């Protein structure tokens, strides 16, 4: 017989995770529209791998299989991996990434709720370090034929015709390696792939993630702190440097609508397990990720910096939490003063 409270609000980890998956759908839809159905193949591949790996690990650890397999957390990790990896990456790249996330980053650290690092970002960081070229082959916008994409994933890889660097990658490469006369405006104006804001097609995918993010906010699954702090910081830093030297630093709208920024803001930075939990801690945590992301994007060797930024801030999360504990009832300003 249990103790009080005797009745509970209907809520479950499963329902939280399923709503996160639901929130990813608009972004996925835009993804398919602009870049073809390959992403669906990758999502399916990642999901099956994740569930299988989860099942094996649960079995090995002697945990109730159906209870944990049904919680949906492995699927969220799998989908995020698929959405951050190139959609035409060879199948084994996705599989190895998912295995690293589920087996190493999740279960070896104690399973659901125990992982200090964001599993999806562990997978991304691992694979981009191990296979930088494969992780940089992104489909060109508008080429949505399924057959060559399928071949790229499972068969012979003849990629030249269909791939191109992502906008972030192209801009970084141009600014870093080309002659000193290259400017942001020059690259962005010249290349066909750059859309109106942050890269053709990608800005619509980002818009889809924003839609999902708003749903998560409305459902109170994420609080405003992290997305707001992340986007505001990214905007502030890129804006300041773009004002300082517009020729060599891309502006805020580009940074926010390109790469994984929106996916990161609402779905990755907000991972509760590996992030901060106090209101002030969330602000610092997300702002730190944004700052590191901008630095890595601008000065680093990798095309997008979110994964490394998240992992670095994951390390700092417990410390940040410790120093940002909110005052408890009656201990604010000596209790006497009404503080509203």
């Amino acid at each position, binding site marked *: 017989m249990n103790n009080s409270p005797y009745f509970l609000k209907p809520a479950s980890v499963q329902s939280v995770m399923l709503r996160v998956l639901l929130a990813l759908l608009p972004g996925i839809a835009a993804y398919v529209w602009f870049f073809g159905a390959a992403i669906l193949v990758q999502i399916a591949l990642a999901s099956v791998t994740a569930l299988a790996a989860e099942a094996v690990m649960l079995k090995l650890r002697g945990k109730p299989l159906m209870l944990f397999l049904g919680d949906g957390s492995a699927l969220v990790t799998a989908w995020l991996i698929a959405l951050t990896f190139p959609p035409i990456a060879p199948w084994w790249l996705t599989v190895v990434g998912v295995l690293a996330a589920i087996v190493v980053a999740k279960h070896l650290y104690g399973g659901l709720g125990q992982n200090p690092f964001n599993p999806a970002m562990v997978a991304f960081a691992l694979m981009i370090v191990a296979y930088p070229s494969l992780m940089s082959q992104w489909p060109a916008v508008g080429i949505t034929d399924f057959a060559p994409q399928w071949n790229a994933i499972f068969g012979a890889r003849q990629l030249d015709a269909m791939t191109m660097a992502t906008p972030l990658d192209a801009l970084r490469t141009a600014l870093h390696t080309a002659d000193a006369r290259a400017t942001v405006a020059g690259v962005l104006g010249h290349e066909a792939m750059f859309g109106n804001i942050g890269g053709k097609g990608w800005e619509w995918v980002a818009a889809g993630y924003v839609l999902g993010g708003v749903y998560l906010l409305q459902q109170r699954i994420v609080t405003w702190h992290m997305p707001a702090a992340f986007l505001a910081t990214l905007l502030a830093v890129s804006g300041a440097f773009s004002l300082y030297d517009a020729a060599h630093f891309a502006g805020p709208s580009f940074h926010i609508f390109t790469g994984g920024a929106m996916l990161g803001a609402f779905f990755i930075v907000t991972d509760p*397990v590996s992030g901060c939990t106090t209101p002030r801690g969330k602000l610092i945590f997300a702002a730190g990720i944004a700052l590191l992301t901008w630095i890595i994007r601008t000065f680093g060797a990798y095309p997008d910096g979110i994964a490394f930024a998240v992992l670095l801030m994951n390390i700092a999360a417990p410390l940040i939490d410790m120093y940002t504990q909110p005052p408890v009832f009656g*201990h604010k300003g000596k209790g006497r003063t009404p503080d509203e």
Partner: protein
Amino acid sequence: MSVLQRLFGFHGGVKPAYNKEASTTQPIAVAPTPTLLVIPLHQSIGGPPRPLVAAGDRVFKGQRIGAADGNVSSAVHASTSGTVVAVEMRLMPHTSGLSALCVVIEPDGRDEWIVRQPFDFRAAAPHQTRDYLRDAGVVGLGGAVFPSYLKLTAGKQGRLDTLVLNGAECEPFITCDDVLMRERAEAILKGAAIMREMLAAGRVLIGIEDNKLQAIAAMEVATRAANQAAGDEAMQVVSVPTRYPAGGAKQLIRVLTGIEVPHGERSTEYGVQCFNVGTAYAIYEAIELGQPLISRIVTVAGNVGNARNFEVLFGTPMRDLIALCDPLPDSDRVIMGGPMMGLLMPANSVPVVKATNCILVGSKKLFPPPPPEMPCIRCGECAKVCPADLQPFEMYWFSRAKIFGKAQEYHLFDCIECGCCAYVCPSRIPLVDYYRFAKSEIWAREVEKESADQARERYEFRLLREERERQEKAAKLAAKTAAGREKAAAALAEAQKPAATPEEDAKKALIAAALERARAQKEQVQPENVSDLTPEQQAEVAAIEARRAEIREMAKPHLRQDD
């Protein structure tokens, strides 16, 4: 009449289904007197009262059968007239299933009162009024059963800004305060007026959740009349937003005044005191009618066909009340209190006591067993709803790992166990159970440590005493020998004064040797095994010596007495 009262929020809270309608459709019924009343002596916070009756005694209704014992304690009375059948251990209305001393009374059916005399509290000194209320057994009827007389002091300033009457009644199913306010508003306000005078309170704010429209209306009418009679505007009904736990004393004080009373501090230090409306009614009955607390309003609700409120004599078995309410056949448990904080009863035969605001009949359908516990995913839902602004998942983490020091650093003892965190947790973790466990472990360890400390002090004191006795004995012995020899030597010297002989020198040497021996003996009392010690050991010895010196200092008065 009423000025618009500015309201403050409190952090967190939840909105469970209230389920209050069923038990408010009928007026309060008087529960029939049972064939046997089992009245526990210990019904309040504080020391258990001393029994004043024995088996075979005849008692009147309202006769004191248990006297307050100690600084924090409250008297207990016979709920009706009859014969004491036994004073014995009986099962208590508590989850633990423990028994405690109860007075078992067989009612004689005559319901004969003691001589009831109103108490003129204006003529009495404040401490006399408090003693009277202690002996009338008035305790907080919101559920905490803290002796009310202890709360009726105005604190250091000698006056209060605000007296808060708590009619929020935020827990689902419970409606005893609601119906009491509907039916006996005037008496409640009379009680409130008495408390206001005792506390020298400037104003009285009556906080009622805005889902109790009838109670608010009734209390407003009575307040208007009371204000008119008093010629001021001191009393005011304030409807507060319905959100559990708005009826927590600290939460209600915060909502009405904006003041947060920290854990472990008296609210009077902040110029405010809070009483349940039922307590105000009990004070009215005790002071103006001369009736001690022998009954209360109890809601019977949950898995019953006919939920309602009763006026119940303390000692009535819960079973009897449930039987009056058509319990459904699938009922499988009895809870005292509401579904958020109530206690599971060990049997339905346990008696109604002062803390019984509600008898909640449960079933698997009404309160389904919780789904299996999942790991915490740190989603923070619990922190969002915590009315004490705690980080419940951190406290859970450390309680589970038995790192109790850390749990305390995260303010475990500020937790009021309202259950909001467990109510919303998507991982279905029984969080409050973890906090109860951690708290009881910490208490147990403190008690253990205290007794260990006492034992150590006793032991060290004994060592000290033995050492002192040895020293004294040795000193006495030495002095005696030395004195005796000196005397003998002196006599001898006197006799052979004229010539200083070598013999005399030898004697002097003898004396010197004796003195030396005595000194050596004295030194021997010091422990000898302290030679050949490592520096660490020496440091440890020094530390122990220092502590001993301290104790010696502390023990000085006792030593003198001993001498």
